[in-house]
């Protein structure tokens, strides 16, 4: 019995050690430096909470939070609508089911950065050329070059890429719906719309929550999309929180200051996650 316990303890050591050294330790350092004025090199002093106060007075930080939330919420909603529609389609009686499923999952295996570069080309060269060819001059400008509309380009690319994974999750959910439930409902004369809301949706509701949580969380961390499409521009109009921390922390000599920004970002994400977990747990109780 003693040796069994020792074996279990040893099994945890590699993971615990790695995890502490490469996750917890840097995390603690990040919190530590957020109370200093360190630039990433040279001397530093403790500055208390002044970094935190300054983040709240920083228009660039506000703009990054504004863009990130706008982008993340719109993309999360669109991704969930499209992926649910595609999943419902793939789950019905269709031809070429396996091949269609394979094509719709394809974007998920591709690098976001490279897809971003391809979309950058589409937005800057292809769409304007196409618009001119068919005579729609309103669309002949590059959307990524407009401070007001560049974020839409980022949303389009992000949705194109992310629908794939969420579709698979929804499809997994739909396959847990027993077929005889539908047959019973169609005998009762329920129309497809009613059938979806009364039967299908309640059964796949846990998948809906999971998808919302996963999509929102990954979109709040958006980085690759921005680097590939706009680099944060024009101006700072599409600069996300991750990109701001990256460029300020590494290139702007704001190591301590951006650490404070990252801690705030961390608190925001935890608050959102706790809120979402509450909803999840409520569901589990109901089951």
């Amino acid at each position: 019995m003693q040796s069994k316990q020792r074996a279990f303890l040893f099994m945890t050591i590699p993971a615990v050690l790695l995890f502490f050294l490469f996750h917890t330790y840097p995390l603690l350092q990040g919190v530590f430096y957020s109370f200093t004025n360190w630039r990433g090199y040279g001397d530093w002093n403790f500055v208390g909470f002044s970094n935190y106060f300054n983040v709240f007075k920083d228009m660039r930080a506000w703009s990054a939070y504004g863009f990130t939330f706008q982008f993340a919420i719109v993309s999360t909603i669109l991704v969930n609508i499209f992926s649910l529609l595609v999943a419902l389609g793939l789950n019905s009686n269709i031809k070429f089911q396996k091949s269609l499923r394979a094509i719709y999952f394809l974007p998920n295996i591709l690098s976001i950065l490279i897809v971003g570069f391809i979309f950058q080309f589409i937005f800057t060269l292809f769409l304007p050329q196409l618009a001119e060819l068919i005579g729609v001059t309103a669309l002949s400008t590059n959307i990524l070059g407009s401070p007001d509309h560049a974020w839409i380009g980022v949303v389009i690319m992000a949705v194109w890429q992310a629908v794939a994974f969420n579709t698979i999750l929804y499809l997994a959910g739909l396959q847990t719906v027993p077929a005889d439930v539908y047959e019973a409902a169609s005998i009762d004369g329920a129309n497809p719309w009613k059938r979806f809301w009364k039967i299908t949706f309640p059964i796949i509701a846990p998948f809906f929550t999971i998808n919302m949580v996963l999509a929102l969380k990954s979109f709040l961390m958006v980085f690759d999309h921005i680097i590939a499409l706009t680099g944060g521009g024009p101006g700072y109009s599409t600069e996300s929180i991750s990109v701001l921390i990256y460029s300020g922390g590494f290139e702007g000599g704001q190591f301590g200051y951006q650490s404070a920004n990252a801690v705030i970002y961390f608190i925001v994400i935890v608050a959102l996650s706790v809120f979402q977990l509450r909803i999840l747990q409520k569901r589990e109780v109901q089951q």
Partner: protein
Amino acid sequence: MKKKKTNWLITSLLLIGTLLILFPLYLTINIALKTPQEMGEPLLSLPNEWRFQNFLDAIELTNFYSAFLNSFIVTFCVVVLTVLTNSLVSYAIARNMHKGFYKALFYYFVSAMFVPFPIIMLPLVRQTAVWNMDNLVGLIFLYIVFQLSFNVFIYVGYIKSIPIELEEAAVMDGASSWKIFWKVIFPLLSPMNATVAILTALYAWNDFLLPLVILTDPSDATLPLTQYIFQSEFSTNYNLAFASYLLAMLPMIIVYIVAQRWIIGNVTRGAVK
């Protein structure tokens, strides 16, 4: 089950939808095969002749083989080590959840899912540089760590569903905990191992941010990072750029075409758990 008649309306809608998915890829292939002179013509028109020289030029310019090898080594090591270490610690946790230490460990790992990467990014870059881990070895360690939270979460759930009686029989035969893990549990975990391996491989192969901030030696660059590094040199030559993008995506696309049923099946299984 009785065969219901095919819904052609939905089939056609989905077929039209695939154009949206395939169009950027068509454009990529098309431009990768053109000459710079042809870029003045409508972009959708087919190349006058297939110019494979673009690929050879891209391979030479971006040092493709080296980047491919780096990506491959990292992905391979990360997948193997992730499956081994993460399933092992999950087994210890799952079978001892009634004890405070293991329960705390579980929550310690899983709560890290909520830690956004940027908060550890700045200190981590300094730390890996000081520890001489600003290279592929460091990258491999970090990928193992960053997937741990999610993997422990799904492994523990799965192991709990494995009846403990299977292990008790082995204990009777005098097998140690290690032996039980290798001979009984690990084989039973195969479906979960496949799911974890696929998700880990996609993550390690396509990730861009971590190589960007961690690696200092350009010869360590992975495929996505290479595309970023050469972006400025591509800017004048889209054909070369797209040939390079296509080369970078091709290995994963080939694996996907060969194994798509297995891949989607296992990702789906991970989702149901």
